[in-house]
C-alpha cells in the first residue's frame, strides 16, 4: 500500500472519521495509541521525509504543552477529589487533573499526526479531481478553485514586483510605522491584481467552452480501489482498538461535552 496512490477523497474521509471518533475519548491511552499507530502508518506507507514531518509537527507539540499546562493549573472546580501528585508553588496538581491534561494534549497531537498523514501524501490536483469524480463537487466550483490556486506562485512574484516598484518610486514613504498603512500599501494592490487576474482567467475559460455540464469527461480518472477501503478499515480499526485497549486498562470515561 502506498498512501500517495490512494484515492484522496476516501483518504480524507478516513482521517475525518478517525478525528471524529477520537473526539469522544477523554483518557490518555486512546489518543496515545492512535498517535503511535498513525506515526507508524505514515512512516511505513507514506514515503514521508522525517525532517519535514518533525518540522510540521513541532509547533503542535508546543501548543499541546501549553494546553496541558492550562488544564492542570486552571481545572474546573467540579472535578472529583483525587490524590495530589505534586505541589508547584501555590498550585496543586491532582492525579485527575494530570490525566485530563494528558488526554487533551495527546488528543491535539493525535489530530495533528492524522492530518499530516493526509497532507504530506496528497497531491492538490488529484484531490480536486477526486472531489469532482467521487463527491460530485460541481466542476464550476472545482475548476474555479483550481484556477484560483494556480495564482499562488504568481502572487509571490507580484509581491516582489510591487515592493520593487514602491522602492523605485520611493516618494518619501519608504517604511511606515503605521501597520495599517503598511498593510494598505501591499495588501490592496495584491488583492486588486488577484481580482483582475481572476476575471481574465474566467473569461478565457468561458470563451474556450467551459461549461458546468455534469456530463463532462475527464482526461485523468481518479478511481476508488479495494486498497482505499482497506486503508479506511485499517485507520478506523486503529482507533477502535485504542478504545478497546483503554477500556481494558480501566479507562471508561468518555468525552460527552461535560459541563
Amino acid at each position, binding site marked *: 500500500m502506498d498512501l500517495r496512490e490512494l484515492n484522496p477523497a476516501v483518504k480524507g474521509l478516513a482521517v475525518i472519521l478517525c478525528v471524529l471518533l477520537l473526539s469522544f475519548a477523554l483518557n490518555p491511552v486512546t489518543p496515545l495509541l492512535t498517535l503511535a499507530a498513525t506515526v507508524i502508518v505514515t512512516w511505513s506507507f507514506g514515503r514521508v521525509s522525517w525532517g519535514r514531518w518533525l518540522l510540521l509537527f513541532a509547533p503542535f507539540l508546543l501548543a499541546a504543552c501549553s494546553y496541558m499546562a492550562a488544564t492542570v493549573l486552571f481545572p474546573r472546580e467540579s472535578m472529583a477529589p483525587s490524590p495530589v501528585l505534586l505541589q508547584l508553588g501555590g498550585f496543586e496538581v491532582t492525579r485527575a487533573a494530570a490525566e485530563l491534561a494528558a488526554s487533551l494534549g495527546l488528543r491535539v497531537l493525535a489530530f495533528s499526526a492524522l492530518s499530516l498523514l493526509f497532507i504530506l501524501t496528497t497531491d492538490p490536483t488529484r484531490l480536486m479531481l477526486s472531489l469532482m469524480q467521487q463527491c460530485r463537487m460541481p466542476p464550476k466550483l472545482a475548476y474555479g478553485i483550481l484556477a*484560483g490556486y494556480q495564482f499562488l506562485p504568481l502572487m509571490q512574484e507580484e509581491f516582489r514586483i510591487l515592493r520593487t516598484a514602491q522602492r523605485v518610486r520611493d516618494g518619501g514613504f519608504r517604511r511606515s510605522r503605521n501597520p495599517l498603512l503598511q498593510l494598505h500599501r501591499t495588501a490592496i494592490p495584491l488583492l486588486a491584481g488577484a481580482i483582475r487576474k481572476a476575471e481574465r482567467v474566467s473569461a478565457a475559460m468561458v470563451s474556450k467552452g467551459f461549461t458546468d455540464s455534469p456530463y463532462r469527461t475527464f482526461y485523468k480518472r481518479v478511481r476508488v480501489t479495494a486498497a482505499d477501503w482497506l486503508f479506511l478499515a485499517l485507520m478506523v480499526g486503529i482507533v477502535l482498538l485504542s478504545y478497546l485497549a483503554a477500556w481494558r486498562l480501566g479507562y471508561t470515561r468518555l468525552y460527552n461535552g461535560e459541563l
Partner: protein
Amino acid sequence: MKLSGWKLRDIVVMSSLSVVFAVVYLLFLQIGVVLTGFMGPMGYEVLFGIWFIVSIIAAYILRKPGAALLSEVVAGAVEVLIGNAVGPILILSAFVQGLGAEAVFAATRYRSYSVRTLMLAGIGSAVFSFVWGYFRSGFAALSWDLVLAMFVVRLVSGALLAGLLGRWIADSLARTGVLRSFPIGKERRARHDAPA
C-alpha cells in the same frame, strides 16, 4: 450543491480571494501557535476574528447567497492544499465559521450589508466557531471563568478583526476600481451618481 446565480467569474474571483486569505490564515495560525505558547488558550482568541474575514469580504463584494459560507470553506480547503498540520478537519471548522456569518446575512435576506450587519456576521462566526471549538478542543476541561473570558474575547475579535477590518479592506479595493462590475461597485456608483 446548487450554484444557480453564480457565474464562473464570481466563483473564480471568490476563490482567488480565498486563496489570498488562506495564506493570511496560515500565517496567523503560526502567530497563534506562538501566542498560545505565551498566553495559553487565550492566545488564539485574540486573533480569532481574522479567520472569519474572507466570509465578510466575499459576501460584501459579491452579495450573493452562499458567498460567506463558500468563501470560508474554499479558504479552508486551500489551507489544506497548501499543507498545514490542522488538516482536513479544518474544512469542517471553516464550514462552521462560514455558516455563522451566512446565517446573519440570510437573516437580513441578503439585503443589508451595513457596518452593523458585517460586524454581526463576524460575531455570528465567533458564536458558531466557539460552540464547535468547545467540543473539539476540549474547553470543557477549563474553568468556567476562563471559558467565558475566551468567549467574550472571541466575540470582540470577530466583530473588529472580521467585520470592521473586512469592510475596510473591501472598501479600499472598491476604491481602486477593480470591483466596478460587482454589486459592491454598482452600489458605490449609485451612491455617487445620486444628486446631492
